[in-house]
């Protein structure tokens, strides 16, 4: 044995019985089915117990922050979709609100409600994915399928609003792309009924399931003090008993007007995180229902006499002939993807700041001010130009506080963008939580972190 060089980290000791025992290094990941996202954990095992865990991140680094310095402020929107790709709408909202804070503008009330609604729908999809995946890794594959089914229904809602399921790019600086569809409350109600059913079933399947509770309760424990010192936020922190929620503690958009509870756990173990997430989904649905009820009504649909619907192409032709009167008061019918963004909708979904938001089609065709406004925003060397300065704006992401720090030097693109990804802090505490647990406990603990590679490695 003396001739074999031993790795430094391995310690061999002679057991009382005379048998030699030694620690074992186990590589888990980067491409391991339980490591959703790409991540590597090097665990030093003493038998089945984890003595040390070295968490290696960075496999999904795509340079989001650098890319955000290269494109204009609205062009960053597709990139933010890919941060936390399970709840892309919250990232959209967070980035837009950061830039809006820098510009010093507020968006109309209806737009704020729309943002809250889409954020909360995203939060549910995120929690469904997290809980479903954790359950699947513990053997409850059925729950995963049910939850993904519910998520599909919610993504159909998202698709109705934004036109895409995942890569939504819905928000724009100063507003959103288009208003909610006219009859949005109806499909929303249906999807929520399905989701509630799924949640109830999953609750029955999991919460009192002996195998599930045995594996979740008492594993991956972190105390509230430790969680705070690591900078953990979101459901993970709330499971430890610390009551902190950005939506309550520094309300943005219209969260201060909505009535909802923040579930708080007691023990800070995996089971509490699961219960907190389950309850948060119920609360999110409650928020969406309230917001749909309270939001100011959208535009009154056009007056049939003065407000004819004219195809955009026809309007362009009329404008080229100089026959502005022929379509004044009419509304342009652009492609179906641009539904909900016309002149009738704009006052309720976008700020009236001309330096930020593109004019409605009718204005761009119908008057020279609109046309110049359009070109001032789309031409090279123009565009949205916030004043010099820096802002930090946090929103409550599905995993915790999602912050955007944006620095502007007055140019049409950001000087620096920094993201505070919620799961980065949690990942730094992962070693602390894993140490001392069994290797099998790593699966639920890592699952409840809900690591999203996109936002962790950016």
């Amino acid at each position, binding site marked *: 044995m003396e001739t074999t060089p031993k790795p430094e980290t391995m310690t061999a000791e002679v057991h009382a019985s005379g048998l030699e025992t030694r620690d074992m290094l186990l590589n888990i990941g980067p491409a391991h089915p339980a490591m959703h996202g790409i991540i590597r954990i090097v665990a030093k095992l003493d038998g089945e117990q984890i003595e040390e865990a070295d968490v290696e991140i960075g496999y999904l680094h795509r340079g989001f922050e650098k890319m955000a310095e290269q*494109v*204009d402020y*609205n*062009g*960053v*929107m*597709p990139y933010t*979709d890919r941060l936390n790709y399970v709840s892309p709408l919250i990232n959209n909202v967070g980035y837009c609100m950061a830039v809006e804070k820098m510009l010093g503008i507020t968006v109309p009330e209806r737009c704020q409600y729309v943002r809250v609604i889409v954020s909360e729908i995203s939060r549910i999809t995120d929690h469904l994915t997290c809980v479903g995946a954790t359950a699947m890794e513990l053997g409850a594959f*059925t729950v995963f399928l049910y939850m993904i*089914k519910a998520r*599909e229904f919610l993504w*159909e809602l998202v*698709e*109705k*609003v*934004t*036109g*895409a399921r995942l*890569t939504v*790019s819905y928000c724009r600086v100063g507003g959103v*792309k*288009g208003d909610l*569809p006219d009859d949005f409350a109806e499909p929303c109600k249906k999807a929520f009924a399905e989701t509630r059913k799924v949640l109830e*079933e999953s609750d*029955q*399947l999991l*919460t*009192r*399931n*002996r*195998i599930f*509770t*045995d594996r979740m*309760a008492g594993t991956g424990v972190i105390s509230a003090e430790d969680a705070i010192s690591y900078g953990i936020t979101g459901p993970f922190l709330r499971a430890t008993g610390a009551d902190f929620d950005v939506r309550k503690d520094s309300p943005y958009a219209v969260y201060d007007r909505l009535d909802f509870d923040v579930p708080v*756990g*007691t*023990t800070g173990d995996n*089971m*509490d995180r699961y*219960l907190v997430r389950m309850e948060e989904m119920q609360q999110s649905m409650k928020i969406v229902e309230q917001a749909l009820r309270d939001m100011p009504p959208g535009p009154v649909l056009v007056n049939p006499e003065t407000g004819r619907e004219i195809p*955009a*192409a026809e309007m*362009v032709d009329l404008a080229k002939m100089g026959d502005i009167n022929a379509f004044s008061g009419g509304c*342009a019918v*652009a*492609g*179906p*993807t*641009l*539904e*909900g*963004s016309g002149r009738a909708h704009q006052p309720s979904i976008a700020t009236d700041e001309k330096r930020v938001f*593109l004019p409605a*089609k009718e204005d*761009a065709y119908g008057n020279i001010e609109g*046309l110049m406004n*359009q*070109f001032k925003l*789309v031409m*090279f060397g123009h565009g949205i130009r916030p004043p010099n300065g820096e802002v930090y704006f946090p929103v409550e992401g599905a995993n915790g506080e999602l912050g955007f720090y944006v620095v502007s030097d007055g140019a049409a693109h950001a000087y620096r963008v920094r993201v505070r990804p919620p799961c980065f802090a949690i990942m730094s505490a992962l070693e602390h939580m894993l140490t001392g647990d069994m290797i099998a406990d790593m699966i639920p603990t890592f699952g409840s972190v809900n690591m999203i590679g996109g936002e962790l490695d950016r």
Partner: protein
Amino acid sequence: MNFTSTPTGPLGLSRWLRNIVDTVRTTVIGMSITIKYFFTKPVTYEYPEQRMPVAPRYRGLHYLEQDICIACRVCEKACPIDCIEIRFERHPGNVNEWFEFSLDYNKCMHCELCCYPCPVDCIHMGREYSLVKYDRSELIVDLMAWDGMRDKDHVTIQAAIDKKKKKAEEAAAKKAAQAAKAAADEPSAEDENEGEDEE
């Protein structure tokens, strides 16, 4: 928190019984929920045969109304990753001779940032979504319905050229008439030049 967790302590009779009860109850609850799904319609689609209906706002592959496109390149600028490539030549009479309007679907992320800024609303996103190809180069899709110029365009160009020529001829004739008039008034050519300089 009110949930079942492993009872600790020595394995007495009560714990033994409770284990049995838990096992049976967990299994019965689980099975009774899952068995219901035996009798419901599946929510899934058999993809290539059945297609899921997409929302009206769905952002699929682009299409271009080339007739009204004014080749202003705004869409090209608005695209954050430069996947639109436009090449054209402008001719008299505001006619564009098209060489290329291509979209690189290797890069395109269907964000729709190119559609809204278009000043004449001619680039749209359709509802088609499957773009399966054998080769990456096939993903660079030409959105043009025609390239080069159409007969109509030649007519427009000819008309514009004729108009310009006619205008130039008219101007020349006018000038000649003026010159003739000036010559009639002032016989000396040098004087005329001086007069012009003064003007």
